[in-house]
């Protein structure tokens, strides 16, 4: 039985300038007091092509967690622009929220992000070197992709399931869908169904 259920995620300050911090308000419910802290990670996928451009924006511990419903804001600074490949600076990418208990990841939420200039002139003729202070970030908040993994919640140290293969399907999908640049909510809807 999963002791922690993610109930809701609210994306705050969205859309916002690229250099604003990410803010997510997370609500989760715990059906039994946890003996250890949860570890939340926020990961910015810098490039769909390879994991090496993933940036862990922040890792936090959340605890102590008694039985009941809890809420907190997870805020992290924007990605280091120097580590983002120039070709991937604009367009669609992904931010991931992951949660682990005893170093076992049990839930992963992915959001598509669209980064673009708002200035029509820049839109038309994007500068070769991205001007991040003019880029706006739009998180497709209504379409979270939630993947849940079975983990061992008990104290006994058995059964350690890693499900990395499924975890990265979002990125694979991203690679496939990246060709379609149009990022209006209506057009993207059909391509995105709940996993």
């Amino acid at each position, binding site marked *: 039985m999963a002791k922690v259920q993610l*109930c809701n995620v609210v994306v705050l*300050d969205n859309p916002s300038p690229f250099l604003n911090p990410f803010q997510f308000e997370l609500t989760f419910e715990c059906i039994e007091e946890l003996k250890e802290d949860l570890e939340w990670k926020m990961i910015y996928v810098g490039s769909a092509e390879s994991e090496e451009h993933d940036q862990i924006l922040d890792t936090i511990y959340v605890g102590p967690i008694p039985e009941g419903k809890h809420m907190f804001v997870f805020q992290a600074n924007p990605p280091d622009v120097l580590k983002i490949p120039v070709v991937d600076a604009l367009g669609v990418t992904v931010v991931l929220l992951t949660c682990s208990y005893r170093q076992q990841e049990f839930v992963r939420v992915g959001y598509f992000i669209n980064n673009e200039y708002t200035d029509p002139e820049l839109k038309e003729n994007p500068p070769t070197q991205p001007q991040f202070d003019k880029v706006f970030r739009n998180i497709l908040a209504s379409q979270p992709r939630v993947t849940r993994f079975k983990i061992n919640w008990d104290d006994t140290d058995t059964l350690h399931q890693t499900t990395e293969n499924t975890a990265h399907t979002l990125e694979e999908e991203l690679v496939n869908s990246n060709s379609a640049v149009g990022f209006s909510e209506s057009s993207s809807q059909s391509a995105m169904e709940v996993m």
Partner: protein
Amino acid sequence: MKLLKPNWVSHDDLPIFSIDIHPDGSRFATGGQGEDSGRIVIWNMAPVVSEKIENDENVPKMLCQMDNHLACVNCVRWSFSGKFLASGGDDKLIMIWKISKYASGGNTVFGSGKVNVETWRCATTLRGHNGDVLDMAWSPHDAWLATCSVDNTVIVWNALKMPEMVAILKGHSGLVKGVAWDPVGKYVASQSDDKTLRIWRTADWQQDAIISEPFEECGGTTHVLRLSWSPDGQYLVSAHAMNGGGPTAQIVEREGWRQDKDFVGHRKAVTCVRFNSNILQKSYKSWCKPQQYCCCAIGSRDRSLSVWLTALKRPLVVIHELFSNSVLDLSWSGSGLQLMACSWDGSVAFVEFSEEELGKPLTLEEKSTLHERMYGKFLSPSARQTCVVETPELLEVREKQAEIKDAAVATNQSEPATEQPVTQRTPMKGPINKQIETRTSDGKRRITPMFIPPAPDSGDVPLPFGASGSQQPTFSSSSETKSRIVIEKRDDIVTPNVSGSSNSRPCDATSAIPTTPVVNSTSSQPPISSQTVGQNRITSNTSDGRLEVQKVDRSVPTVVATKRRMDSAHGTGTKLPTVKRSRPPVATSSDKQLQPTSLPQPSAKVGLPGVGDVDSGQGLKLPPLKLQDGKGFVVRISGGIGLHRNRCLEVENGAYGSSFGSLTKVRMFSDGHSAGDMPGWEAVLGYPVCGSVANSQLVAIACEDATLHLLQTDTGQRPLPPLVLSSPASRLALNASQQVMAVTCRGNVSVWDILKTKALVRNESLLPVMQAEPGSTVTILSCSLTEEGHPIVSLSTGKAYMFSAELGNWLVLANSRDPVQRCSLHRAFVTTLPTSENTRGLPLACLQSHVISGGNLLGQGSSVSALCTVTFLEQQLAACRALNSKQEYHSWLLALARFLVQEGLETRLRLICDDLLGPTHSRAKNSKSWETSLMGFSKHALLREVLPLIGSNLRLQRIYTEYSDQLAMLSEEK
């Protein structure tokens, strides 16, 4: 008959293993496979029953989805009360669910796009099985829950005290796939892949019978073997059995467990049988008498469903090809006219019958009368053991008792008490208005999340819902730049509570978080609230619980107080919300000065905010005695002797003027005097009188100069010079033994014995008992003096106190707000004392009539309220002893005995009996430690009154016999 397959009831096309209709017919639950977990879904029943509602988009269809089981859910069952839903699955767990209403209302199943209209939370998890749980059943009255598993056992759980196990029924040598209770609670039956059906006694949890013959040819081809017991208790119908090479459902008769009938016709193994819980009745034209029968639905692997009436030899209806795979579970509605079935193919079917087709259900009373006729007195769970009267005398006693049986007790006895099977919840919860951020030694943040307290589970039984389902919670996107959650950052370095952490000191992390805010780095933050911005609101302050009124200006955003320096590199060019240094967002407050919130306030200075004005430092200020018109008054005195039976005392302030000041006239008349009569006696006082009390012996007059004058009622003589009070009198009281009590304006109580010229209580402060809640005031409702000279005050707080000079302390005699009293069920056990006009004999009742107000009787006989009742009754006994109120002591003692007898609390009862009986050995008479009387009653006489009460509970008959024999022996010796 109406048949329907609602296509919206699905687990995304995954198998549905179990279905159960809520007893009130408003909802039904399904259990089965989820995408990567087990899944339970609670559905609205109304859209299934009515097409109109089905098409109404405002009516929610799915109410709640719970994906908490790690693996497939094989069984869901509602308790008879409807309060709980039990679920069991392949993860070996049983979970007990109850509805809860979070303040946040609805809820999404995050990421799935589904909306949970209701919130069901897991109240208890039952761990005990070593394998998949396949079937479950609640016993009649919800006393037990039986679960069966592939671990070859059946476990019986105490449903009143989860997660307590009552018994593990071991005996099957194969997977146990079905379990069913006898409707009168005497047996539980289980069916297994070991080709047997076993019947277990609930009296001792031993196997009563093993039936194997009809199952010899069976193979383990079904997922479940859900058997069922008929509502009249006469027949047990098994799942998969074989007869002559064909699959059947075997009928096992209660009488000798005979197996000579079966339901034949299904072409593949029978997976589930479910009796309609109603006994039905129909009068056919050819029969003169209406016939009673039961109705049973059978589902099979052949994908068909049959419905049988025990009055007919052929099935009422057979529905072939209902599903594309095996039927897995069936459920009848409480009304008995609706039937639902679910299948491996992931769909459910709904069948509705008319009363003409099925028959008219017997009412609950008729059903229980029928049970009583067939099985004797209906066995309630509290008296479940079959008891035989062992001695003839007891029978006699019982007959007598039955005649005088208190109606109140009878009504109170029922209630199978399903309150709180919840285990004690963790007391430590997180902060409820903020999240706290600290840093670990490696620089990572550690967040203590904000706890969202659940609303108190009101009523607990899920209510039918109205249009409330239309409130669709929004989720995910928000243009708000800041969360409403306040973030409190602390400089403490903590260790994350993670096992893999390098510098982990296990479980130490919590201690690193100070429980009170650290003054330097924090400040009070506005608690989250979006709607109330711009209004005055009351905020309880965490540091000392005092209240203050804050006005939050709309223009001031709720701001995150942060100590962390904003990274300027990232800050440039972005529109970061302005970070203000923390300060309480208080603009105005009323005339009271505002306390700096973070400074702890010395409590002494706060004193008693409720009690009057705080008078230069600490102390009480009570209103002084005052004449209504300031001129004079008349006190009537009754209870004198002979001629002076009724007298009256007349006091007139300022009756005579003199050059040195006005004088007060005090005169005593016989009652009914006329204007010209001579007074019995006459006196003058030099100061205005502010109050007086009098009885047939003594007159006490308080003057405005804070003196107390005492006069003999008969003669007007002064036994003592005036007594000086420490401050003007606020209250006076007298008793028959010439003792006077005075309460001063400063809240000091004194009592003097005038005959003995002795102080009984000296200037004792009321301060300890007049503590007020902030914002309220405490006033004295009444003051009195017992015959023993103990002062008693009852207060507006609903409490009454007596001062014991011997103990030098105040004693609580009554507390109407005591939760113990409120939870207590004593009312039904107290025989009302004769309420004569003279309540002097009942001081406690008199006192408590003042203060007992609005105590509500909780109708639940839970174990907690039983404990409360015993505690309250013992408190009453102690109060009676303190007051020396014999009659009431007697009455409360019997009430306690009655309660203990009904609850069968043997040990406590023995304590009482032992004391009443005293030593029984031959030298008993010489014993010094044991008094023969108690509060003026002979203990043996009391025991003679208590014993017949004990005799009324058969389970305690041995105690009855034991003590009555000993009592008889003792009386003979005399």
